[in-house]
């Protein structure tokens, strides 16, 4: 056991299994998340289905209802399982979280009971015969997954962001949605899915996170006893790298039509700079000045001065080395908004930003980074970002790096940001929503 510079107590629990414990009295809850790192690929749909089926029942709690009742007995312990996408990693995670016993007058077994529940769901799913998920559960969850994917269009802002990345990164695994594809659902079987689950469980690198008022030694012992990890055959973490553009790639414009009241404009940029890169702090400041905050250029120019939009921002995709700028506008204002959005990026490349703008971005980034320590979820997410990018880069280190960034560093970064794709979600010409 050793303390990393990140503040986590880090321990190798076996080949490819790493545990990060953040012991603190600051929180009244204990949060535990087990994350399996699977490469994002053709099997994304199957992978997405696994956590859904796991939440339907375990050997001891064979239905969603039985699991829910168990959670109620454990003072409303949260139990979740899902997939998320981080760069080219398809993360399968199971998490529990809940109040620490003394704040509800419960016995000290509560933490162990919570970990047991997590182990039940992850390692002992309801199995029919041998090597097969429940047929009914699988059928029902395939249906729910189909509905979840179809439902993506209900949230236009998130849908637009996904569509931009999909258009931008064609052929790269990053273009795959975390829920997979509709046309892959049909062929999934209860048996094949169980096999897939077994493989992910046996082969994936694992990160375990525990945050809360715990004794690291105690948690490690409990987890060692409860989690039957296989001893070998586990892969090590795969390397990340920035998205590399297609050769001769000129900016491409993609227009999609739906019956919408508000049109959404997205500009996708390649930065070539990922989270582990030495220039990443400069890139963060760049995006901070450009559009990450309500004092940034995009908000002030597009919203406050031109009254074109309610939201206008820039956002980095740190694992892929990408950046998106976006705003929501009246369809008739497309040209004006596009020009204004691009003009801000061009101004950045010419070094047209003041010391005040730089100071404000630096201060806001610093506040955001320091705030990570106040949320168990944010702590885990931030550390995962570091794990996937093979460089932990804890908030304090990042803050120190931001302090060293000069105006020249930002301009240098600004000059290598390149527009790749424009995506516009709008209504049919003359159409009414």
């Amino acid at each position, binding site marked *: 056991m050793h303390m990393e510079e990140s503040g986590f107590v880090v321990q190798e629990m076996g080949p490819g299994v790493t545990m990060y414990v953040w012991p603190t009295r*600051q929180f*009244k809850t204990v949060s535990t998340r087990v994350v399996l790192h699977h490469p994002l690929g053709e099997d994304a749909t199957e992978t997405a289905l696994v956590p859904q089926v796991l939440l339907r029942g375990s050997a001891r709690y064979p239905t969603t*209802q039985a699991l829910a009742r168990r959670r109620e007995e454990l003072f409303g312990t949260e139990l979740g399982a899902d997939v998320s996408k981080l760069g080219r990693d398809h993360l399968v995670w199971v998490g529990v979280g809940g109040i620490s016993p003394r*704040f509800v007058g419960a016995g000290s077994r509560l933490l162990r009971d919570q970990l047991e529940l997590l182990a039940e769901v992850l390692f002992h799913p309801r199995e029919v015969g041998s090597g097969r998920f429940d047929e009914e559960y699988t059928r029902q969850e395939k249906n729910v997954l189909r509905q979840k994917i179809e439902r993506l269009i209900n949230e*236009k802002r998130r849908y637009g962001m996904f569509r931009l990345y999909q258009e931008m990164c064609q052929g790269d695994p990053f273009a795959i949605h975390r829920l997979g594809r509709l046309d892959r659902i049909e062929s999934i079987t209860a048996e094949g899915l169980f096999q897939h689950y077994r493989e992910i469980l046996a082969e994936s690198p694992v990160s375990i996170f525990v945050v809360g008022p715990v004794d690291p030694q105690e948690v490690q012992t409990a987890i060692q006893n409860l989690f039957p990890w296989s001893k070998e055959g586990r892969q090590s973490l795969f390397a990340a790298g920035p998205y590399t553009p297609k050769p001769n790639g000129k900016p491409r414009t993609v227009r999609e039509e739906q*019956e*919408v009241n508000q049109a959404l404009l997205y500009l996708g940029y390649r930065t070539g700079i990922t989270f582990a890169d030495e220039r990443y702090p400069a890139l963060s400041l760049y995006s901070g000045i450009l559009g990450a905050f309500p004092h940034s250029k995009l908000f002030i120019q597009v919203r406050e001065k031109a009254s074109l939009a*309610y939201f206008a921002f820039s956002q980095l995709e740190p694992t892929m080395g990408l950046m998106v700028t976006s705003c929501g506008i009246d369809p008739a204002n497309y040209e004006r908004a596009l020009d204004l959005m691009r003009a801000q990026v061009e101004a950045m490349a010419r070094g047209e930003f003041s010391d005040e703008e730089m100071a*404000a971005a630096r201060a806001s980034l610093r506040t955001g980074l320091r705030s990570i320590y*106040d949320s168990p979820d944010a702590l885990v997410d931030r550390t995962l970002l570091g794990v996937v990018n093979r460089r932990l880069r804890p908030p304090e280190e990042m803050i120190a790096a931001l302090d060293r960034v000069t105006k020249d560093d930002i301009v240098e970064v600004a000059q290598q940001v390149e527009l790749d794709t424009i995506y516009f979600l709008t209504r049919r010409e003359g159409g009414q929503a």
Partner: protein
Amino acid sequence: MKALKETIIQSHTVLDEKVYGRRLENGCQLFVWPKRGFTKKFAVFSTHYGSIDSHFIPPGASEVVHVPDGIAHFLEHKMFEEEEGSVFDRFARLGASANAYTNYTNTTYLFSCTDRFEENLRILIDFVLHPYFTDENVEKEKGIIAQELQMYRDMPDQRVYRNLLEALYQVHPVRLEIGGTVESIQKITKEQLYTCYNTFYHPSNMVLVAVGDVDPEATLDLAEQEIMSRRPEFKGDIRRVYPDEPPAVKEKRREERMPAAHPIFYLGIKDVETGKKGEELVRREIAMDLLLHLLFGRSSDLFAALYEEGLINDDFGAGYAATPSYAHVIAGGETPDPSRLEERIWQGIEERRRRGVEAEELERVKRRFLGQASAQFDSVEFIANAFSSLYFRGVHLLSYRDLIPEVGLDDVGELLEKVLRPEMAAVSIIWPSGNGKVDQG
């Protein structure tokens, strides 16, 4: 300098939490909730004024004024502009982030920071107590808010909810969109904004809550001085006028077509026993939430059956909203068959009425509520926001948790018997229009 007001400390030994409060001479209420070990400091300054307060008698006047729908939210936007520029810039120089939100009953201004808390707190008080509206800046805001409203109109979950409230209520302003409509906001003028501001943005109608690793007495002293130096006098004569809402729902069924993946079904039940306040109101809310969880939660028989039949999916949920002037239950989500789901929900409620609620299951669910209500104290944002919203409803956040064990079988049984009645219900359905498929390349 006058002597400052006395501090009242309340604490909760099991939760290990403590709150410092002070009531100022001008009627303003201040609270500081220290959170040792937290990096972030978070404060809200909130006025008891929301979208439903559209009819009122301004101070010194005798006639009821009716202002355009959406004005409370419009006013919130405009508070961020000052003679010297944007309030965001003042916070930005200190690395703080500021924001605000308006709901049916309150408008809340907030900031979050890690450093220079006192300076940020001064800015918060200063800008909220300092209106600056001009014809030009009011006009300019209309385009921005119009885009905000258009954004909501494209969200099926928002539309199904809006339509439901329009169906449930005949005249109560809760039936209207908080931000108003693209048309209604065009009528808003600088003079109307000042009228609303002068009526509702007085410290006697406001609460300030600061949460984080701060010195409670010093923070209270600072806030007291800043507020008293700007608005020393007491003014407690806000006269709000709410229309008399008839018990019956306006329409039984509202249906609309828009781009959406699947039909969305919301069932609303109007609770006509309004007029409750304080702990009585909040205890009723907890009892109803417990009942709804027993009926529709993941641990219920009904949820399991509906899910397995494919009538609902992970999107399904139920909740209750209660204020002194309106209250309703909403249950629903995506479904392939709204009519069948409606029928099955009522069957489930009827069956529950026959069977009743057992002590054991109520205890189990109360345990869940108790644990979750305690877990929320890990978030400084939660504490500040929940504190101010509960405060306006007459309940202290520190006592909220202890209301849960007080709910008995009788309370839950009475709500089941009296409130969940088909004659008080309306439904809202969104049907998918043709266009709008996921493009997966």
